[in-house]
């Protein structure tokens, strides 16, 4: 039915029977076509595919050899309770010595917490995970969620310290492992959040003194590494307090982490405040609301909703950053892992322990980052509509 100018000028039957919709030929959609388009589209692409496939297979085979085939899962323990790791050493790195994990996992997860009371930090860990899951669900995004957080955090404090309900008291010095990591991150975000909201509002305030104060705080904290704040907490903080008053090390580190997180969170929240259209501010003003009414009822709920994905990303960063307390000697998950291989019997099996600890961090962070990506897509769709 090709036609030319000459043909189309003459009157002619124009209607043509409809062509049937066909399934595309296999050369267009089949797996072969897919492979041609995405693996072997040019000689250059083919070379990359082959080289990568070779390396990947080599690497995967090496990994399987190391992690499974040659690995040792348990070692005998002698009368003095010292592990006999000769078999592991005989491997000379050809296989993983997972025995270090099977022997030490409770130490890595719970630190020096009394052995028979391990169920308490375990329960705390589960409570934390539950808290994250509940906070992640959109139907719970209400003011009551703040109450749930307060209640859960109090409950976690009670469980960890004990001293009531028949639970023996456990001093803070004996806490450790994953529970400490979760405590530092979660309490950090919980206390940093209200502070961050105030600082973000202050930075957008029209009052010059308050604005300057907030800018100096945010930029100062963001300009220095977390380590320097943690050092400050561990060696300088005791000098700040009046004589006789003493705060334990974990709490000092927690304060440093809160101050650190608040500066970063404040910038994220400020982004949300800026992203809100002027119309929202004007509409609130037109209703005759006071500053705090306007902020609390109109501005903040919208601004915070806008920045939930970056807030989750900040939390992931904070979760990873809590590992820095290792440097000032607080017993978090990473410190516990590092300490586990200090014992002479287990020296030299750091790789296995770091893989194990790394996997725990990865599971938490990966879940959160996937969640944040999904949420971003969902919120964007909402906004486009």
């Amino acid at each position: 039915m090709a036609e030319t100018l000459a043909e189309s000028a003459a009157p002619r039957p124009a209607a043509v029977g409809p062509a049937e919709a066909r399934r595309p030929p296999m050369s267009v959609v089949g797996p072969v076509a897919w492979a041609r388009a995405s693996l072997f589209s040019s000689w250059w692409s083919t070379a990359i595919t082959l080289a990568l496939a070779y390396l990947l297979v080599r690497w995967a085979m090496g990994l399987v050899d190391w992690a499974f085939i040659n690995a040792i899962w348990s070692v005998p323990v002698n009368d003095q309770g010292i592990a006999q790791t000769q078999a592991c050493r005989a491997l000379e790195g050809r296989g993983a010595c997972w025995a270090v994990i099977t022997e030490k996992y409770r130490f890595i997860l719970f630190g020096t917490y009394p052995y028979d009371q391990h169920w308490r930090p375990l329960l705390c860990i589960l409570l934390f995970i539950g808290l994250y899951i509940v906070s992640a669900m959109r139907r719970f995004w209400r003011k009551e969620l703040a109450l749930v957080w307060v209640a859960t955090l109090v409950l976690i404090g009670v469980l960890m310290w004990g001293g009531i309900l028949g639970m023996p008291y456990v001093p803070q010095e004996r806490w450790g492992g994953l529970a400490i990591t979760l405590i530092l991150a979660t309490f950090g975000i919980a206390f940093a959040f209200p502070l961050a909201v105030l600082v973000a509002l202050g930075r957008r305030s029209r009052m010059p003194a308050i604005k300057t104060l907030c800018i100096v705080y945010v930029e100062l904290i963001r300009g220095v590494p977390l380590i320097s704040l943690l050092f400050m907490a561990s060696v300088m903080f005791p000098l700040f307090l009046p004589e006789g008053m003493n705060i334990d090390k974990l709490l000092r580190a927690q304060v440093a982490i809160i101050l650190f997180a608040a500066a970063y969170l404040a910038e994220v929240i400020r982004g949300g405040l800026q992203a809100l259209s002027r119309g929202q501010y004007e509409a609130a003003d037109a209703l005759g609301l006071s500053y705090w009414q306007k902020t609390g009822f109109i501005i903040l709920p919208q601004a915070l909703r806008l920045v939930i994905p970056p807030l989750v990303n900040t939390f992931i960063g904070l979760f990873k950053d809590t590992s820095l307390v290792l440097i000032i000697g607080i017993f978090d998950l990473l410190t516990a892992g590092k300490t586990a291989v200090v014992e002479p019997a287990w020296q030299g099996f750091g790789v296995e322990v770091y893989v194990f600890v790394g996997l725990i961090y990865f599971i938490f962070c990966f879940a959160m980052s996937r969640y944040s990506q999904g949420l971003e897509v969902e919120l964007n769709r909402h906004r486009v509509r």
Partner: protein
Amino acid sequence: MSTTLDSAVASAARTDAPPAILMDKVNKWYGAMHVLRDVSLSVAEGERVVVCGPSGSGKSTMIRCINRLEQHQEGRIIVDGMELTDDLRNLDAIRREVGMVFQSFNLFPHLTVLENCTLAPIWVRRMPKKDAEELAMEYLTRVKIPEQARKFPGQLSGGQQQRVAIARALCMKPKIMLFDEPTSALDPEMIKEVLDTMVMLADTGMTMICVTHEMGFARQVADRVVFMDRGEIVESGTPDQVFNDPKTDRLKTFLSQILRGH
């Protein structure tokens, strides 16, 4: 080779001039969706074809196949005597001869209006900068916005941006111009200035394929109107035939919807 192509080539030969664009049984799929179904079309040099049809009918896909912004998967497309294949040299040559104007202008926001226009002549046609600028000013004058040459696209109205886009394409001195819904993204008061520019261009004898719903424009300049629906060419003929004497129900429905819209 299919008989259709032979007949098309033969009929093209009858009119003395070889067709500027020849599409023969072109098929294309997006995944499993059949978006172009046996599309065959021949456009003679100097001919002005308007393509219309409901959204999702494959009009844009068809003209984007002509300069290979989309790749067809079956059939042949011959532009200015060169077949579109995987050969990149052919593709470069074809793209030099085919200008394109997009629905969303696609001006380069980091370059001035003048730089937008001189970019391709300098880098593709190897023209001295001074000559390229003179040429650009000539076309900007023709689309009636020489005074905006030093501004950035973001500072212009939609209608002005689209006219710059037309001037930019013309600076390559193409033999064929493709318009992909050039007025759909414009406010009503700006549509006319763009259409006037296109009418002016049509008067110069340029070969044009234009996807648009502007019936007035089609009646004024089109030698032929092609109606597409569901990936196929359903009817084609003079504007008069297509608009006043639709043969198929699909075209009737489409026309009634368009008229109701106006």
